[in-house]
């Protein structure tokens, strides 16, 4: 019983820290963006203030009960997704659900947001969601191929097993560099950073799906965005960079967890900053250009990565 309570408390702590870290990441992104533009930029804690302000707004509007599903499913789905992602070697619930489950859980918040924004009856929202879904079909092609190459190479679909097999710097990025490259390209679209931010283009379609959300609705969606910044970068870190596990917890105990957590934070930051720098200097693709791009180069690279994994695993019989 005591173990269970400690377990739940630890999970909650990790999720809370992840959301906070996500907000910090968003702040860092704004700061970097500003520096690239030769500006001073907001303080890094700016997004905490923004969320606080939005949640403290005096009035909020809603259109109907389906509109409420957006923040509810958005935040609940984001927290749930965080629970299934190992952070710094701590597996949370990822032992009880594998990558396929994670992939489908990751859809829940976006689906809730699509429902809510669709219910606002604003045509911009419909167009925005259409673009987001088309973009999703685009980037999922290379991303699923890279996932498959990992699953085939490591012969597992479980993230926690994947982490175990990558321990001791046997990171997948060294073994399957092509897949890692394709996954990073897909990540850019998954995070809707430029050049793939057409679904939320503020000047064309009034920030797309978010057009009608304000106050606490927008605040909760911002928390969802923060959580997903961590989810997506952390997914890449867990898949290709060994999840930041450099010390074996069974050997070093609690110190290992803390060190691993900091390494994980560092790696997440590195992946995030790469995406942010690309974001800072690019204009945006139109949606059909984005689609063509994703089904061309990243898919070819990912297919090559898959071929490599296939040859190594099935024909050469390499067991990692």
């Amino acid at each position, binding site marked *: 019983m005591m173990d269970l309570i400690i377990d739940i408390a630890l999970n909650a702590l990790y999720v809370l820290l992840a959301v906070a870290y996500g907000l910090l990441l968003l702040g860092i992104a704004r700061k970097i963006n500003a520096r690239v533009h030769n500006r001073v930029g907001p303080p890094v804690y700016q997004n905490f203030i923004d969320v606080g302000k939005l*949640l403290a707004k005096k009035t909020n509007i809603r259109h109907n009960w389906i509109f409420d599903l957006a923040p509810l499913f958005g935040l609940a789905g984001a927290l749930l997704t965080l629970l299934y992602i190992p952070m710094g070697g701590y597996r949370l619930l990822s032992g009880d659900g594998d990558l396929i489950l994670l992939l489908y859980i990751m859809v829940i918040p976006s689906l809730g947001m699509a429902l809510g924004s669709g219910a606002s009856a604003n*045509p911009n929202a419909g167009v925005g969601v259409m673009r987001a879904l*088309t973009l999703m079909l685009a980037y999922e092609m290379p991303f699923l191929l890279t996932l498959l190459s990992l699953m085939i190479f490591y012969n597992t679909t479980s993230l926690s097993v994947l982490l175990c097999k990558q321990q001791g710097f046997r990171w997948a990025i060294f073994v399957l560099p092509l897949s890692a490259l394709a996954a990073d390209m897909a990540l850019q679209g998954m995070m809707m950073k430029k050049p793939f931010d057409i679904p939320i283009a503020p000047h064309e379609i009034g920030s797309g799906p978010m057009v009608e959300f304000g106050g606490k609705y927008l605040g909760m969606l911002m928390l969802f965005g923060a959580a997903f910044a961590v989810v997506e970068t952390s997914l890449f870190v867990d898949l290709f960079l060994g999840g930041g596990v450099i010390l074996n917890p069974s050997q070093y105990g609690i110190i290992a967890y803390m060190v691993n957590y900091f390494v994980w934070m560092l790696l997440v930051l590195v992946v995030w900053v790469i995406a942010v720098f690309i974001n800072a200097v690019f204009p945006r693709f139109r949606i059909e250009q984005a689609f063509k791009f994703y089904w061309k180069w990243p898919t070819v690279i990912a297919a090559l990565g898959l071929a490599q994994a296939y040859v190594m695993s099935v024909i050469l019989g390499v067991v990692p």
Partner: protein
Amino acid sequence: MDLQTLFGIFIVLPVLGAFLSYSLGKRASIVATAFSAVPLIFTYLRMGDWSQYTFTALGINMSFELNPLNWFFILMTSLTSFSALLFSISSVKERQNGFASLMLFAVAGANGVLLARDFLSLFVFWEIMSWSIFLLVMRASGESARIYMIFGAISAYFILFGIGIVYHYTGSFLYSAVGGVPAYAWKYLLPIFIVGFGVKMAMMPLHIWAPHAYSSEQSFVAYLSGGLSKLGAYGIFLTFYSFATVGVLAGFGTFRTVTIPGYALALVGAFTAFIGTMLAIFQDDLRKLLAYSSIAQLGYVLVGFGLGTPLAVGGALFHAFNHALFKAVLFLGSAAVIYRTGEYRISELGGIAYRMPFTFMAVLISIFALAGIPITSGFISKWMIYEAAISLKFVIVTPLMLIASVGAFLYSFRILYGVFLGQLHRRHEHIKELPPHMLAAMYILIVPMMVFAVAPGLIFDWINSILVYYGMNGLTYTTFSYQSSVGGANMLVFFVAFMAAFMVAMGLFMMKKARTVDQYDNYLGGEVRTDVELHAAHNFYKPLREVWEPLLKYSTERFYTRVARFFAGGFEEIKKVYTGNPQDYAAYAAMAFIVFFLIGWWLL
């Protein structure tokens, strides 16, 4: 249970009901619902009461059986037929015209097909079912019915041809005698049966009847897509794992532990899933969208049957079950929308959810199941098929399936946004929620989806008994969790975590109150309430369509049309053979004799 009860409940009773309800006019569906409820309840109660009966009639050995497999399929079909008939009480009231009796004939046919253990009764009941479908489709459109008839005939001929081959080698119509067919004959027999049953399942090159037939009366289509298309899956399962056993299939060679026919079937299934999904994305007709989605979803079932590991076959059976439920609900939802608005084009609808919230809820949950969101059981069956393919390290089948499931989000959102969300048109402002019995028809099907999502172990018990009955290994599972060789998931943990996360979100959400505003109080650059309809559902995936345009011009339907035109032209040529000159006829006869002689000589 004896043969009389079995026969009486599953076949005679629906036929009786059919005759009775034909004389009742408007109230026919009520009686028909009652008659279809009896087999459903009976099926559920008779779980585990397996028995087999063989008897001789007119000098032919005939056999019927209730076993875990056909029990499972009867449960599916009678669930969907019951709810379709319950729904049709109001929806086809004025246009009854034999609807309910034809439905009951189809039920009787389907039950007969499922219970039969000999080819003769299989074929007879198959034809009863097929003709009832033909007549039901004909009610809506003669053209659709003709297209269905052509494919139905192809299916029937192939099955008949297969039966002929089996009879040739064994001299018996019983399933149990199929083992006598020599291994080399399976080269012909297997494709023949797969095509024969695959037509009913709308397998990829044979799918084009489906979008036409599925555009007819929607409450019937709920049964056609949910229930009757599963007979194709049933037939393919029988062909693979009952008629041709694993030994026979392995005789064709294996590709990484999967038999070559199985691998081919999996490939066909994966392409069916992929292409069906891509076509569904671009449909503006709600019924056609669901039809293509149906084709795509049954592709997953084919993949599962093809891969042949216990996990894959179990997943395929589970997916067939899920598909029966969620596709029936979706078609009933479509029927509901058509019943209330008379409109089936997605771009002309919109905002129906604000007027029909319970219908929307049912459709939403079944769309979760369709897209594989883990809140419903639709996820688990897809998961099983994926894991099976991944653990076999298949690199063509798996990505096709995975990307098809991403495509499923696209078309399901097209339904959700185009029909149920977005702007409510002025002309639809008056519509009302469905009457309770129609909602009940939908929610009956929702309940199992939710229950099996939390506790998949309940349905794995049934699936396991099927797998064990056909000599396969069982699945690894507990009541709440399930495992493959490469991964696993625990649904109870998932649901508890989901609830906890939802509570946190709810707590944050409840801190502030929100004011409800009108749908026209929307930010449009300061404009409000004009007469322009602002529902952005017309040509929804236009950018994607533009990208796909070069590929979309290759259509199977156009190919068939061209073939048909070619043959029509060809027959014109053949007509010229009849010259009217006796000497020509004599020459033909001589030529034919020589040809037959040569063929016969080569054969012998």
